[in-house]
């Protein structure tokens, strides 16, 4: 059985080296640091912020229809790019999410020596739904005259924020339970992302899109509930070995 929390030779804490620690702390207590405090760095950061450019721009519409729609929206005092930026974000997020599920599925199927903390069939279904959501968004962007291959500013931000999650699930040393904790972050963000997208589509009057997005949101809400339950179950099973993960999941 492979546990996440077996006690071993973790050397990161200071308590492991009491003699060295005493020396280290005494030396640090005699430090004469440069004058000032952390606010010195804030001044530099503010100066860079004043000069900063943006991460990037929204790509221009790639079809006449897209250009026309943008012009109409402008006349109505609405900004289509704010919507398509968020569509681009979800699109990129679902594509990465599909890959995250693939990694966790593979790990779950390989993890013979770990307690079963997530249902493989459900993981597979969630993976397929992430993929369908990606397809749905691709179609939506195309229909709105945008380019689904472009990276929008919000998509870029979300991708940077997700890099740690990909690192966790692709590391052969992590357990399924550890990966599920990372997945929970993804699902929490995904749930709120779809909530926002459905609301935006609704507000802008894209009724059919809004309906599809609400359907996706319902599926994401289910993903979130299940992943949450798996994480709770796996942790309780670890804390109370008499209890199995499936009981709490």
């Amino acid at each position, binding site marked *: 059985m492979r546990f996440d929390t077996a006690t071993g030779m973790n050397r990161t804490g200071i308590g492991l080296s009491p003699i060295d620690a005493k020396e*280290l*702390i005494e030396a*640090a207590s005699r430090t004469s640091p440069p004058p000032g405090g952390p606010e010195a760095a804030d*001044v530099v950061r503010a100066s860079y912020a004043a000069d900063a450019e943006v991460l990037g721009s929204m790509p221009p519409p790639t079809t006449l229809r897209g250009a026309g729609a943008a012009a109409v929206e402008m006349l109505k005092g609405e900004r289509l790019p704010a919507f398509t930026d968020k569509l681009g974000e979800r699109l990129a997020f679902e594509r990465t999410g599909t890959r995250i599920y693939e990694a966790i599925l593979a790990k779950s199927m390989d993890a013979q020596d770990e307690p079963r903390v997530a249902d493989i069939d459900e993981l597979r279904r969630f993976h397929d739904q992430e993929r369908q959501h990606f397809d749905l968004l691709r179609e939506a962007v195309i229909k709105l005259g945008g380019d689904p291959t472009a990276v929008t500013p919000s998509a870029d931000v979300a991708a940077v924020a997700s890099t740690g999650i990909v690192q966790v699930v692709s590391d052969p*040393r992590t357990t399924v339970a550890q990966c599920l904790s990372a997945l929970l972050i993804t699902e929490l963000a995904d749930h709120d992302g779809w909530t926002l997208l459905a609301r935006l589509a609704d507000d802008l009057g894209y009724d059919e899109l809004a309906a599809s997005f609400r359907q996706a949101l319902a599926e994401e809400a289910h993903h979130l509930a299940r992943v949450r339950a798996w994480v709770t179950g796996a942790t309780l099973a670890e804390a109370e070995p008499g209890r199995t993960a499936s009981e709490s999941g």
Partner: protein
Amino acid sequence: MALDVWKNRGVPLDRQRFDWRDLVRTPFSKLDDDAFSRVRVILMNGIEAEASRFSHACARMNKPLQLQLARVRRVEQHQQTMVNWMLPPDQSPLETTIAYEQVAIEVTASIALHEPDPYMKQTYNFGLLEDFDHLYRYSALLDRLEGKDSNNILQSYTDIVPGRPTILHHRAPEDDLREPYDRKTAHPVTKLNALTIMAGEHQTHDYYMNVGPTFADPVARMLYAEIASVEEQHVTQYESIIDPYESWLEKWLLHEASEVYNYYSCMQQEKNARLKDIWTRFVDYELGHLHYVGDLMRVVEKRDPEELVPAEMPEPIGYESHRAYVREVLANEVGVRAIGTIYTEGAESEATIAYRERMNAQGSPSEIVAAGYVWAPGGELAHDGAASGGGGRPSVPSTERRAP
């Protein structure tokens, strides 16, 4: 039994083989392995990076040696890969930076302790106090940017306090050059020491140049820019202590000897069995390279390589805390400066002062990042009496368990 490098021919070059799965192994544990295992991995990556750098420079200027250089270099490429890929992916670039500075401090201290030439020893001490200060500055960055404690990486072996302040490291190029050892009279350990430190510092420079722009934070980007510049000065310093009149083959032979010496030092002290396997295998590979180059030297230069490299390797690098030595050097030599190749008690050249003023004209990143910074176990936020964000200290809840 001590290793006799001329009696033991190691593994012949044509039997030094790899495959991709062999090259890419399970990394060591950031949490559980000893900090000195990480130190050895980083140093040996630097040693192999230098092997590659030297080999390419040599090939560009020596047509007749190109084939032999290419053969050895291909193996060294894969040695470097196997070694460097032992770094774990959960170790962030800034955490790895902390480890690079620990390498610079502990390895330089060990080398300074073993160095018979007083001028060389002074040079190592001079550089040591600068890398020691870099550790303090990067620790402040790690704590204040990522909310992490650098001692998680250092494992209490190395002090986290200022050394010679980084703001003072910036010198005019002419004040970074040193006198070289004499190839005819220098002790062999002096040559191996110089190559080891030069290799370590060069990879540190290259690492900072590569990871610096991956940071979003402008203060981090500035700090890497500043310290990378100092590391460039260190490379200038350490390459100048090596006799430039050694022949190309002599230099190649010494590189291979330094690789044998360093892998052998690692092998003797490694506790992680998987790393020890790598060090042991590569001692044999490097012996193969040493003999390959030694044989070339006999044919091409009609010289006996055994006159240049002693059969018995010097005392190994000490992979242990050098706290007492570092503190002594800090107490006695923090005020040392350099004019040209001469060390002074504080005097500096006009060129250095002008250069430094210009570089620091809009502020000093290393001063800014560490303003008011005092390391404490768990980071400065855990420091007694530290600002608690205005809320005061919370009352500590009881950890008594409810009766079942």
